[in-house]
């Protein structure tokens, strides 16, 4: 009897639970749908464009099929020329222009080659001799390798370009001609972020110790002073640095007046100005987690170490620092992650040699319209950010869990 009562009551609870669950999903649905449309979709499109290679198959489907079947190492022959001529006769000028632009990313001379072939398409029959007569480059392996790399609909060309590599069908992965351009940009981005993070740690540490030793009332008042820059627009802070650092600016005016320099220093449009402003923008991100770690630190352990005769340096490195390290690391990684994606500050304060990866992504998207490369560089940045964020989240959980 009692068993049947229990059996009768449990479905009621389950039904109620299911109602609560559906209600919860219902509350989440609007935002999830919204973000799928405005965030997941766009990011997915970017990832897709990093591997998509649709211009050539769209304009010249038969050629794209033929080069896919071709092994990439043997000498080009009529199996490639016939579909090419067939496609050239049928293709619309607009599609051909898109395909030519795609081929020109890799080999600029191919644009003219393709356009010349289009003009002569009526006289071509697809024989090797006729192609040789048109332009000997049509018989070269390198020309057709470029076609093969662009034959899509999905390929690794843009992704490999983003790290200055190229897939050569005869030699495997090789470095591209313009060796090291994007790798050096990536290295520069990581370098600027690393220096910014280091300076932030060095500046935040004394500031946090100072704040940690104040009474709660003073500390809250002083925190307000740190929150003000935090709430102020990045653009305001960046323009303020432009005004300060310009040749006739306040910094130079004071240095001249003090007699420390004879002529104004060039502080703007170089690495120094970029890092100075980045540190200024990112410092609050470092201060808050570090201060939290410091106020959660057990002071009695420090006292105990002193009472047992440990020297101040030893107390600092063996007792104090291990306690604040998780908070310090979480803050530093956060600074590093956010700095990696910076665009505005380097664009305004840096010279051409100080631009970070975001600048080139923007440049390729709206300037030179190389969307494949823009997306591939975006993918590299996204992967770096995601990996670092996972580490950061792990550290942040550990530092709050320890308290």
């Amino acid at each position, binding site marked *: 009897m009692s068993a049947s009562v229990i059996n009768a009551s449990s479905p009621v609870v389950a039904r109620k639970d299911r109602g609560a669950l559906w209600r919860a999903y219902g509350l989440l649905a609007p935002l999830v749908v919204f973000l799928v449309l405005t965030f997941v979709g766009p990011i997915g499109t970017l990832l897709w464009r990093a591997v998509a290679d649709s211009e050539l198959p769209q304009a010249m489907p038969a050629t794209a099929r033929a080069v896919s079947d071709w092994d990439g190492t043997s000498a080009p022959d009529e199996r490639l020329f016939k579909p090419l001529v067939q496609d050239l006769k049928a293709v619309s000028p607009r599609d051909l222009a898109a395909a030519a632009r795609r081929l020109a990313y890799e080999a600029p001379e191919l644009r003219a080659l393709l356009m010349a072939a289009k003009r002569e398409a009526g006289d071509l029959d697809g024989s090797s001799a006729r192609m040789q007569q048109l332009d000997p480059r049509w018989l070269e392996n390198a020309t057709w390798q470029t076609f093969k790399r662009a034959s899509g609909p999905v390929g690794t060309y843009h992704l490999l370009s983003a790290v200055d590599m190229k897939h050569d069908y005869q030699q495997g992965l090789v470095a591209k001609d313009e060796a090291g351009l994007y790798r050096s940009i990536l290295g520069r981005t990581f370098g600027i972020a690393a220096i910014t993070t280091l300076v932030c740690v060095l500046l935040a540490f004394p500031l946090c110790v100072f704040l940690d030793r104040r009474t709660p009332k003073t500390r809250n008042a002083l925190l307000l002073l740190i929150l003000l820059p935090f709430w102020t627009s990045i653009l305001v802070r960046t*323009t303020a640095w432009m005004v300060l650092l310009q040749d006739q600016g306040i910094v130079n005016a004071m240095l001249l007046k003090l007699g420390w320099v004879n002529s104004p220093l060039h502080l703007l449009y170089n690495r120094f100005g970029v890092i100075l402003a980045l540190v200024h923008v990112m410092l609050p991100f470092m201060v808050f987690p570090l201060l939290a770690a410091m106020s959660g630190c057990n002071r009695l352990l420090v006292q105990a170490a002193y009472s047992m005769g440990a020297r101040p340096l030893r107390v600092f490195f063996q007792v104090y620092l291990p306690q604040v390290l998780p908070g310090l690391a979480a803050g530093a990684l956060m600074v590093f992650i956010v700095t990696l*994606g910076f665009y505005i500050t380097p664009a305004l304060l840096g010279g051409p040699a100080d631009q970070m990866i975001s600048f080139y992504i923007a440049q390729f998207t709206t300037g030179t319209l190389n969307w494949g490369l823009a997306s591939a560089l975006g993918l590299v940045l996204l992967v770096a950010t995601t990996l670092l964020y996972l580490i950061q989240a792990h550290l942040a959980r550990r530092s709050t869990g320890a308290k």
Partner: protein
Amino acid sequence: MIRNPNSGPMAWFGNLGVSLSGCLVLAFLLLPILIVLPLSFSDSRYMSLPLGHFTLRWYEDFFSSSQWLSALFNSFAVALASTALAVVLGGLAALGLRHPAMPGKRFIEVLLIAPMIVPAVIVGVGMYFVFSNAGLTRTYLGLILAHTTLAVPFVVVNVGSALGGLNQRLLWAAASMGATPLVTLRKVTLPLISPGLVSGGLFAFATSLDEVVVTLFLAGPDQRTLPREMFTTAREALSPVLLSAATVMVLFATLLLLLSRAATRRS
């Protein structure tokens, strides 16, 4: 011998060093922003010291230029609209996330926070691809949707933490006295989490007001916002009117900061 770390000449010098370096770093944080204020009232063209005579010329330039005024108006209109949208969507989602044992909860949480972490350029490029196909670039609607996306995580986080501090027994008490879930929400939950809603909304507003990267990708000539206008002006040449624009924005920042402090104090 036991050393007392809190007294003696070493400790005194140590304290002095900490105070001195702490104050220097504070000055480094504050001065660049504060210096803008006096410079914006000075008639020195080079925006430098010594300060020239007092003038309101740069403010006159700002408030008499239809370009700057419409940028100011656009910034506000877009920020207000996206804050409203973000508060509604984010508030509802935070209520939904309260369910303790929802399958896929971790995944949904990551999705809702992600716009805060993914670099702005990546979001901007992705939106540029999708929105231009949907005819949303160069429209106010597109800009509002984009800013809402970037602002909504702040609402979810703030309302979520306000809900975390909510006493579950109050909800049970309301239910035990016959209140329907909707009545409980309106009469008990909402009043208790309103500080979280307000501070989330303020964060959302500040995010939209500060946003420039995604705006550069999406906005057309009609959707100039204040940061975008400052960016394009500063890129061409420094002009003192930038200082008055900056001062206006610092004032808004101060206002938002004080409001958010008031909101957290209330909770």
